[in-house]
């Protein structure tokens, strides 16, 4: 394919190809590949420290200083983001792709009125004047469900609840109608009833505006509710991926299977012993060779000291990186 050809309409909006990130030489993201189609929600799920946020930050060139991208390419709507310099990337951010960060209150500027924070992107990327930008910002705040937005736009973040701040973040992220929204744990810091409001809002954005969302979370319940497709990470790698219903119905990777089995169910037997995953996640400089789940996997065998490839499993649209997926069904 020549570099100049325009992307086909059904081509994926976002393609991450073989991304690898190190911190002080330790491999924290290793060979991550993702593909996200327009209008879909892809959930990146995994436990603390597995590399979800670093993957997201790499996409928009926002890696922390200590981290280095050592491999991989990111393409957004046919444009190679990894080839862009910092100024060009800054133009992409907030315009074609935006991020909602993990900590809503901390990510807003405490000294700036929330309305101005939403309007800023419009001035920056759309060249709107102060008054136009303010009017559009208020309209956006109304759309994300902030009552009395005209007045609330004048408030500072500390004057608003956590749920309200998260709505402001979402409004600021969406006001320039980006093609891609990256939401890193958008509801983790919120109460369940407020989480339900924000998830409802994100459902609405999909239905009305056809938003394409990369959703990062550690909560399998949020995945089940929001995602079309899932990629499960462990130790900086994707260990399993596929459509959400197929994957939850019959997880192929031992880690996914056990992870789902450890969660207490509302319809489970009360006080019953819960399934556990023995041991702890090793630190990034102490991964075992081969399969990184090997040190905790009940199925681990000699072959697991070689790295299992992420290969088709169970159906044409599913992948897993495990030598023993055939035996995994007996696990849980």
């Amino acid at each position, binding site marked *: 394919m020549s570099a100049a050809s325009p992307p086909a309409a059904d081509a994926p909006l976002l393609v991450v190809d073989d991304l690898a990130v190190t911190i002080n030489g330790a491999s924290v993201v290793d060979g991550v590949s993702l593909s996200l189609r327009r209008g879909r929600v892809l959930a990146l799920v995994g436990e603390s420290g597995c590399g979800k946020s670093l993957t997201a930050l790499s996409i928009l060139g926002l890696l922390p200083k200590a981290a280095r991208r050592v491999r991989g390419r990111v393409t957004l709507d046919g444009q190679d983001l990894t080839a862009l310099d910092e100024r060009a990337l800054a133009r992409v951010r907030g315009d074609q792709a935006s991020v909602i960060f993990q900590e809503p209150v901390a990510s807003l500027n405490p000294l700036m009125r929330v309305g101005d924070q939403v309007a800023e992107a419009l001035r920056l990327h759309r060249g709107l004047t102060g008054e136009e930008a303010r009017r559009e910002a208020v309209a956006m705040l109304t759309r994300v469900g902030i009552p009395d937005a005209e007045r609330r736009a004048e408030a500072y973040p500390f004057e608003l609840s*956590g749920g309200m701040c998260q709505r402001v973040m979402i409004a600021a992220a969406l006001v320039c109608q980006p093609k891609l929204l990256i939401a890193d744990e958008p509801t983790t810091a919120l109460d369940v*009833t407020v989480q339900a*409001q924000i998830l409802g809002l994100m459902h609405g954005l999909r239905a009305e505006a056809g938003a394409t969302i990369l959703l990062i979370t550690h909560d399998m319940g949020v995945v089940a509710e929001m995602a079309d497709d899932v990629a499960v990470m462990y130790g900086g790698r994707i260990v399993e991926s596929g459509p959400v219903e197929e994957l939850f119905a019959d997880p192929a990777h031992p880690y996914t299977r056990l992870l789902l089995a450890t969660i207490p169910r509302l319809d489970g037997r009360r006080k019953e012993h819960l399934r*556990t995953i023995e041991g702890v996640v090793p630190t990034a400089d102490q991964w075992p060779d081969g399969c990184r789940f090997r040190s905790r996997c009940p199925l681990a065998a000699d072959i697991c000291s070689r790295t299992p490839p992420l290969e088709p499993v169970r159906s044409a649209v599913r992948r897993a990186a495990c030598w023993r997926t055939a035996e995994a069904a007996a696990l849980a």
Partner: protein
Amino acid sequence: MTEPLLQVRDLRVHFPLRGRGGVVKAVDGVSFNVPAGRTVALVGESGCGKSTTAYAILGLEPATSGEVRFDGRDITRLDRAGRRALAGDMQIVFQDPSAALDPKMTIADSIGEPLAIQGWKSAAAARRVFAVMDLVGLPASFAGRTPNALSGGQRQRVVIARALALSPRLLVLDEPVSALDVSIRSQILNLLMNLQAELGLAYLFISHDLSVVRHIADEILVMYLGTIAERGLTDPVFAAPTHPYTEALLSAIPLPDPVAQRRRRRIVLTGDLPSPLAIPPGCPFATRCPLAQPRCVEVRPVLAPSPSGQAACLVRIPAADPDAATRAAQR
């Protein structure tokens, strides 16, 4: 009939705000019991007063009014010596796991600290430290390590071991698994269930995670802005909650099951939580309640018998209207 191990009667903890005037009624008339060997869960959203209730029970925050009894004895206003004596019976595991352990102290010294305060001899204390480490599944080789050499789950075991050192009969657990990863969470929940079965401990289990609460608790108290909205045995409350707030909470739990999740009807609350400084005079939930009637804004409901236990909702339980209750009493 034996008395419940812990009794809390009409507990209030108010924080007067200096300068600005006004009072935060963090806990405003809460009553419940924790029987020996049982788990009672306190659930509700951030800021509803769960931790403050726990602190008042432990005497770490003075009660504005009301009464706390342990084993039949009034412990609401103990002096320091009285508190120290009580430490052998009742211990707390604090909410913030990173602040719970002194980073410079070894694991063994942290676990042994309550023993040292009680004046245990060092040989006996050392034996006890290793015994409780064994109880919570910490290898003896960890004794000389500092907390930064431990994982989050291991640190939480240390904190639980320290709380168990004096063989208490009641453990107050403030969000004991919230900061832990799912795969580690189930290890700690299993540990807590095992310890209860072995040692006959009673738990006051504070959590905002309703799936966890349903799994571990015998009884559940749902708090909203300093008051109890609903209480009852776990099964009936989860099967058919009476209070519209409990209903909304249960419907908002994200189920790790895409098929069930998409079939489910979810109650999404509109409206905002009132400021804790200006809790309205009527039902505290009225600003967000899908069932609210004009009367709900005027009259504060009281807990009254419900099919699932007790609930404070004027619309669902007419007897929760204090006027109705007074009229009934007069008749």
